[in-house]
């Protein structure tokens, strides 16, 4: 199985600015978040990368990530019909081949030589099927994620056969349908925002009716739930940390994490300590 393309979704109407934010990467270079994501995709073997954007955002994005222009395609999502629809917009782009998919508002930070996307692509290539990156997550966070249920692949601690997918389940439903043997009590496998998907996902998304009342298309989780019943579908448990830039202080936390795992680690740590020490001294001065 070849995985020549990657799709990054960045069309969410309330997160359009996030991928354009500049952070300092591990090597001390200032870069847009989107740059980092594209580089991750390229490092994983993607020859072309599509970015699904809100109409009118193409120019701003192109300007930010000009260095990779040759490999980039911008695909507008005409109506804000949700995440599933955004992925579906890239249907023609991916054609009949499997593709790597990342969300534009997350940063993935692993060890120095570890790339989550590369690992995912290697596994999908070897297994010849869709693979989603997942992370064991405590149940109180369930309202924020798509969750998979399944069983461990014999002989592997970090690989699961996906049997069910539910978007933002209640803990009750999760416990009844999504318990995975081998995880700690109250933990579930939640999506990580990174997948390698076969083109069958696009067919499923295209065929799903969506919600007439809200005008939104079917969610990617709903499509993946069907995918799990049709073909082999694996989930890889990631030890890498993922940072949701849309969270409160999300960008700041991601930047700190990047800095602390890169060459400027000592410098950043020293500055943090200095800042804390100054606060303590000032506070002691006030109360003393």
């Amino acid at each position: 199985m070849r995985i020549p393309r990657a799709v990054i979704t960045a069309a969410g109407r309330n997160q359009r600015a996030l991928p354009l934010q500049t952070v300092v990467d591990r090597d001390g270079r200032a870069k847009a978040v989107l740059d980092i994501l594209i580089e991750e995709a390229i490092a994983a073997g993607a020859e072309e990368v599509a970015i699904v954007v809100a109409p009118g955002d193409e120019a701003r994005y192109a300007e930010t990530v000009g260095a990779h222009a040759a490999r980039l395609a911008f695909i507008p999502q005409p109506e804000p019909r949700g995440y599933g629809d955004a992925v579906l917009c890239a249907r023609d782009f991916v054609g009949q081949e499997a593709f790597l998919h990342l969300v534009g508002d997350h940063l993935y930070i692993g060890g120095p030589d570890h790339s989550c996307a590369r690992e995912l692509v290697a596994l999908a290539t070897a297994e010849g099927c869709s693979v989603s990156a997942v992370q064991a997550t405590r149940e109180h966070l369930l309202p924020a994620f798509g969750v998979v249920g399944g069983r461990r692949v014999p002989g592997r601690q970090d690989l699961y056969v996906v049997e069910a997918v539910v978007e933002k389940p209640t803990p009750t439903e999760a416990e009844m349908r999504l318990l995975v043997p081998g995880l700690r009590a109250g933990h579930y496998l939640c999506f990580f925002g990174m997948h390698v998907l076969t083109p069958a996902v696009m067919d499923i998304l295209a065929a799903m009716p969506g919600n007439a009342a809200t005008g939104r298309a079917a969610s990617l989780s709903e499509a993946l739930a069907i995918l799990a019943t049709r073909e082999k579908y694996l989930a890889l448990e990631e030890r890498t940390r993922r940072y949701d830039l849309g969270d409160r202080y999300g960008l700041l936390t991601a930047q700190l994490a990047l800095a602390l795992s890169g060459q400027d680690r000592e410098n950043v740590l020293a500055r943090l300590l200095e800042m804390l020490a100054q606060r303590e001294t000032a506070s002691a001065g006030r109360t003393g």
Partner: protein
Amino acid sequence: MSGELIRIITAHDESTRNRSLDAWCRTASASELLDECASLESFRKRSGNLYEQVRALFFLYAIHRFHLPARLASGPDGQGRIPYLGHAHLLQRRFEESIQVFLGAQAADGPSAGLSSALAEAYHELGFQTLADQVRRSVRSVRGNQWMFRIGHPMDQPLRIRPELREPSGEGLFPILREATPVRMDLSHSAWSDIFFLGMDFPEGARVLNVSIDLAVHGRDPQPRPPVEAYLRVIDEPVLRLVSVDLNTVAEITTVAEVFDYARDYLGLLKAAVIASGLVPPGMEGSGERLDGPNGLLTRLVGPGRGLELVSNVNGIPKGSRLAVSTNLLASLITCCMRATGQAGTLTGQLTEPERRLVAARAILGEWLAGSGGGWQDSGGVWPDMKLITGVAAGPDDPEHGVSRGRLLPQHHIFTRDEITEDTRRKLQDSLILFHGGMAQNVGPILQQVTEKYLLRSEVEWRARQDAIALLREIETLLHAGDVRGIGAATTRNFMGPIQAIIPRATTLFTERLIERAQAAFGPDFWGFWMLGGASGGGMGLIVDPRRREAAKAALPELLGRAKRELEQALPFAMEPVVYDFAINTRGTWGELVTGAAALMPAGYYTLTTPALLRRDPGQLSPGRRLELDRFAAACRVDPALAGMVQTLFDRVMPRAGAAAGAGQDLQAVLDELGFDRAQHEQIRADLRQGRIGLAHNRLPASTEITDVRAGDVAHSDALPDAASLRAEGEAALRAGAVAVVTLAAGVGSRWTEGAGVVKAINPFVKLGGRHRTFLEIHLAKSRRIGQAAGSWLPHLITTSYLTNGAIRDFLDQHGDYRYPGPLRLSPGRAVGLRIVPMARDLRFAWEEQPQQLLDERQQKMRESVHAALINWARATGEGSDYVDNVPLQCLHPVGHWFEIPNLLRNGVLAGLLRERPALKTLMLHNVDAIGADVDPIVLGWHLRSGATLNVEVIARQIEDRGGGLARIDDRVRLVEGLALPGEEDEFQLSYYNSNTFWIDLDRLLAVFGLTRADLDHELRVAEAIRALAARMPTYITLKDVKKRWGYGQEDVFPVAQFEKLWGDMTALPEVETGYIVVPRRRGQNLKDVAQLDGWLRDGSAAYVETLCAWGEA
């Protein structure tokens, strides 16, 4: 050969496994039984299988309770005393430790009936504890329930209220989620096979035909509708507002702790629903967190500044309907909360099958949390229509696998229209009349007894169970065939046969009278009787020819009313009988989302909440509240269903003058009529308030030397020397008319009906000789037999009080004095007390300082919550004030049985009898519940020969004999009340318990009072003598439970303080020469508690009493 019983327990083939323990024990000797006990004891400890352990525990219990004591010869004094340490372990629920202590005593002192009674109790408790623990583990381990036990902090709450409920509509009102749920009707009476333990032990036998029904009260409601409703909405105040429209209670809760305080108010069921649905997960108990505030649970659930309101509404269906109203209400509330938080897939309409199962599991969890519990069919109203519910064998994926044979949760099969046709359903609806007879009974002990009997495979009950299973299959076949008349015959056979064989108390005289009269009234059109649930007398059904149904419905209220009036003093009735209209519900629980201007609560909600809102400054009301009141006012003007609401509200805001004062005036009138001594009452009240008297002051000084009696202090009735001549002396006295019986019946026997105010003497509590018999009838039957044998009818005197006199008089008139041929006189009491709201310190003394039986974890929490609420009640009402907030007769109390004997002297009854029977010399005095006591000629002869003033019958103490006994106190042998013992352990060194049966030498007794026979005609002289002696008798302050009834069959129980003087203290007077005789238990035991009845029937005591009786029927 030892180990035979283990082979029965572990047998793979059914015929061996189901062998009856009783049958095996019948031919075994005492030493064989003891060997088997030793084997079972070590087996139960090494077996890893729950059901083997539990069956072994029940076997051990039954051997010690029913088989061993009869085979043990009564030993020398002191042997078999029950070690206090074992009892203390029992109180603390350390059952294993208590068993080891009792077994140690058995090894050291040899086996005895007393030790066996203690071992039986410990094994019994441990058996049920083991079962309850297993149900608890299963409930917690049901998938979908587990997570709730892990959530300990508001920030961990993963649930969110669905967006549809979070935004007000255009009119500004938040949408309301309304759940309407039918109740369930057991179509066959499942012979209690749906008890969790039984379904888990024998899933094949757990089988129930269950119908979801809508109800209406005939003549009151226009048409049947789902009787229970739950409402949920978001509100614009950060509180959890719980409202029970049916129980008239509102609470606004802001702390997690209050949610777990179930008994604080009438909102326990709503709180259980809030917890079991995960809104406030059970794992948060004890977290000390708040619901409001930025980090509060409500903020997490529904957003800052907002709260939730949950409302329950039962459409006037009385308690005790046997239709599982409360379980279905709980299920309805849970469903509503689960829909609101997305735990059910849809917000409206029906639930899916997995969702129903989860709701059922959560309802079980809720019942467990609130310390109650029914059967697994009870949440049947969640499902639609007619269904078969069956137990399921535990499979490898079930948490019960390898632990119990069956699963906790059953499976439901909804009958299709092919299986039961539309026509049959209509015929069934047209033939069946449902009604509530008005009786309220505690069925809790019944569930335990059934469990025990089934697990023991007791012969009669196990056979009856097979019959009941066969009858259920027959009813299924008849349903398929559409033969409703046949169904009527089958349900009647079920009631008359298996059900009563398993639990004799399932029937009542009231029920049987009804069936008899309905049969007579409707002739061949009466097709059958239908028993619903635990015990009859409450919810029941008749099946009649559909053509006669309307006529039967019209006639039924009169029929019920008449039977109730005849028996209302004798049986516990909580309300007037009610006839229902019903319809089969085909939807099951059903959710609707009400939006816009229609988003209003049920009318009763506004009747309840509006008066308080109107009293508040409108500026203090939240905008949502103001808007809602505005919309409600608008609806009142146009909605015909709300016609009359303005008047209702006005009456609520301004209660009519006089209504509240009425009860107080009635009470005063009764007090005046009964010659209430206000001065004495005021003195007692003042002493109580100032702490001069109280529970703690009942006790003898700690310096008192209390020891057990010595060998020569008591005689033994079964070892009296020269018994033949004693008998001859006794018989001669009987022939000469020298003896009379005095039955003490002034008290109502509050333990017997748990404070229901029923007159125990005339309670038809057991069927003997083929009929229901009252305590009085049994006593008269024993006297009849003695009289017949002696050739002279025994005079029988019954002491009464204001509480019991009228009821006993009427009842005896109704029954022609039970055709008693001898003199039968009532001796009305002359003393009455007014109950007092207890002092908080006395409540604390009783509940906190006195050793109490610790309950199962959840029940204990419930009890602590109840106790806290009752202490608050006492404070709020006024400690030491008169208890007047009840019907007058529940506010008064008899002042102890000491006064009943002097009354005989004072009221002329004894004087009259002496004129007729001048030879009268001996009185045999006994409690109304001393059911085996009779004028035994041998004991009588012994009494006469003793020359003592009093002789007292005592029995060897068993574990349940609490409340004093026979002791040497500062070296005088006398009776001592439990209230007077300084420490609980003192009681456990006393070998004998007082049966309160006294043989009295009349002339010597008169002499104690300073009187002679001639004085009995001088009332004043007698009164003075009584007053003088009364002053020497100790006064005890006691707490009694009293029921207050309200609403539709609701009952509250309050502890009230009263004072008593007790006859046993006569033995403390130095001038009263007293002797003591040990009699067999079957003669001396008193039936104080209905829960004793089953054992009494099974251990041979009832059969013994029957041999003493000569019934009066023609």
